């Protein structure tokens, strides 16, 4: 990664953050604030998954486990201890990293479909623990009673605007860090593993170490998303850790695009907006979402952002360059 691109990324992130923070002063829309808070959670979750899917070629079906783990660890620490919000979030991330290390150690040596299924099995195991360990997790009822939303660096998270601001900052900084990972030598190594694993090993790279590092990093950022989700619903519920949530992240990645860094963010934004819009008009939301999936997979065959960046690139380089590909 050159310092030039790093500076450009930071500038883009700062501009995006400035716009996000300015919006509530220009337009009064609590629904928009809620939407961005949810995008913050979902985009960190989906982008971290894409570090595995698009960045390393590891299709994880159980990434939602970390989303749920972040939510539960954070909510439990907030409910049962008196530690500050930042400390609870920090501890939750450490817990997720440790769990990621243990789960990753089992999973990353497996390939393709076996990796996908073992990650799914791990998530279902985690979900079963949540359901069964009632005294700690509340079982299927979830963690009731709300999360005491203590003040964080002067931000009172009981206020929607403050929660929005914190979520926006966490999202932008989180995505910037993930961008940094994917542009770093580690990111390049992961892409090399994705494209040709034996050759990468032949070059002297310890493949399992690189994969495990990616798995842990992805787990930590997914649980950061889970923490935001827990703050939004003021609790933690088994649905945040069940397999459909992993499916949502996979769909966000596919919808937005695997080969563009911001693809999963775009996918998450479209998916959430689509879900909200469809729910407003009909109870047959499953059918509508199914049709959209069909349209994207059969019609576009790539993520929305992949198609757009490709079109832009073609326009810039002229039709000849595009046709030559």
């Amino acid at each position, binding site marked *: 990664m050159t310092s030039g691109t790093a500076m450009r990324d930071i500038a883009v992130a700062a501009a995006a953050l400035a716009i996000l923070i300015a919006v509530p002063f220009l337009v009064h829309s609590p629904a928009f604030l809620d939407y961005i808070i949810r995008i913050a959670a979902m985009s960190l979750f989906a982008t971290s998954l894409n570090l595995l899917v698009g960045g390393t070629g590891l299709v994880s079906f159980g990434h939602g486990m970390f989303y749920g783990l972040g939510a539960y660890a954070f909510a439990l620490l907030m409910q049962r201890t008196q530690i500050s919000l930042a400390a609870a979030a920090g501890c939750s991330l450490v817990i997720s990293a440790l769990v990621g290390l243990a789960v990753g150690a089992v999973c990353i040596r497996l390939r393709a479909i076996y990796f996908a299924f073992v990650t799914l099995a791990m998530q279902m195991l985690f979900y079963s623990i949540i*359901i069964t360990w009632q005294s700690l997790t509340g079982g299927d009822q979830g963690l009731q009673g709300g999360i005491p939303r203590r003040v964080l660096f002067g931000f009172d998270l009981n206020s929607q605007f403050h929660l929005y601001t914190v979520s926006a900052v966490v999202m932008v900084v989180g995505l910037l860090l993930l961008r940094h990972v994917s542009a770093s030598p580690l990111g390049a190594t992961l892409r090399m593993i994705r494209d040709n694993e034996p050759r990468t090993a032949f070059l002297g790279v310890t493949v399992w170490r690189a994969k495990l590092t990616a798995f842990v990093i992805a787990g930590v950022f997914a649980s950061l998303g889970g923490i935001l989700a827990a703050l939004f619903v003021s*609790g933690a519920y088994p*649905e945040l850790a069940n397999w459909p949530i992993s499916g949502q992240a996979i769909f966000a990645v596919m919808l937005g695009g695997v080969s563009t860094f911001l693809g999963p963010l775009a996918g998450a934004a479209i998916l959430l907006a689509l879900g909200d819009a469809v729910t407003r008009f009909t109870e047959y939301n499953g059918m509508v979402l199914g049709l959209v999936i069909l349209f994207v997979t059969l019609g576009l065959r790539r993520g929305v952002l992949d198609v757009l960046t490709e079109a832009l690139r073609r326009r810039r380089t002229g039709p000849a360059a595009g046709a030559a590909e």
Partner: protein
Amino acid sequence: MTKTDQRITLRRRPLLAGAAAALATPFVARAQGTAKSGTVKVGMPTILSGAIALLGTSQRNAAEMEIERINAAGGLAGRKIELVVRDSKGQPQEAARVVRELVNTDGCEIIMDAEASSAAFAVQEVIRDLGVLCIHTSSETSSLTADPKLRVATAFRCARQGVHDSIVGGSYAAKVADAKKWTKWATCSPDYAYGHDTTTQFLDFFKHFKPDVEIITQAWPKLGAPDFTEVITKLIQAKPQALFSLLYAGDLSAFINQANVYALFSNMAMFDPNMGDYPVLTAVKSLPAGIYSGTRYLENFPDLPANAAWGEAYRKRFNQFPTNWSWQNSTAWMLAEAAAKKAGSLDAKKMSEALTGLTIDCPFGVGGKVTMRDDHTLVNYAVGWGRTTPKMPYVIDIEAGDWKQLYELEAAWKKQMNYT
């Protein structure tokens, strides 16, 4: 890029613009969100899709009937009701989002929360943040209102609840067991929090009334299990005299259908508080006579002309039977109507004050009256037990629960749980 590609791109533009406009609707909806003058918007998050869509549809039906009646009589505090129903798919995080949207974007001033279990707790937390009036019409988990830590100043529960059913069920089962000299019992309940907690609670009260009971086996089938053979054989082999079960809805009808094949009911009596609801009673292929059944909703209990008339009106209008959720939702509207009349305004604080301790005439109450008690939960609703019969009215010989005894034991239970 070829010419064909260009054409496709050009056609895509209006499509994309249309899609973007549709997706942006929630953010611009604010402008139309506030209710038309003279009306009040009431939001109802519920489950309209999936396996328990009936939970939502049977409440929406009840709401429609009540709103029509209230609007014809002048509305709530002079304002006509406009109902906004939204599907949460039963997911707590979606329920929380939907309620925020209903209040913040659609401008709903009251929330009729028709969410089940964990989603109701998620809604409760949103209400704590937003401070609007909310009446929960499905959640039967006692802690929602019994635990002072969970209570919210503007949130109420208008639904039956676990501890009430356990007390009445325990008392009734003990009476029958005494008369029949049944001491060997088994249990068979779904393997998750509700099944375990409520079975334990029922057994506590049952043993309070009849200490010489012996529980010889306990089966915990998985929720939504298609095959109960293993459970049924286990129960038959244990040879209990009676079985207590908390299976409900589809699981309960599937269990009875399969248990019929093994002649389970000729070997033991069965007690299930969730039996007495028409969707279950009518789903069983050949309903055995004599299953001891709690009354969730029945047209013949409470035996009041107003209840029978309401049930019949519902059936005629929607061509299906009402459910337990229907009467609960209906009662919530009646309470809101009376509270609005008392408060003279729909302000959440004034409405909450008016609702607290409010007693109204209601077709589903003991003696035609129900009360929203000081701890924000419904009491004096009809709760009883009877025996099934294969044809309408499906449940007969119904004995009403004793609310005096119920209050005493409930108070003791609250103390034991450190709620008071």
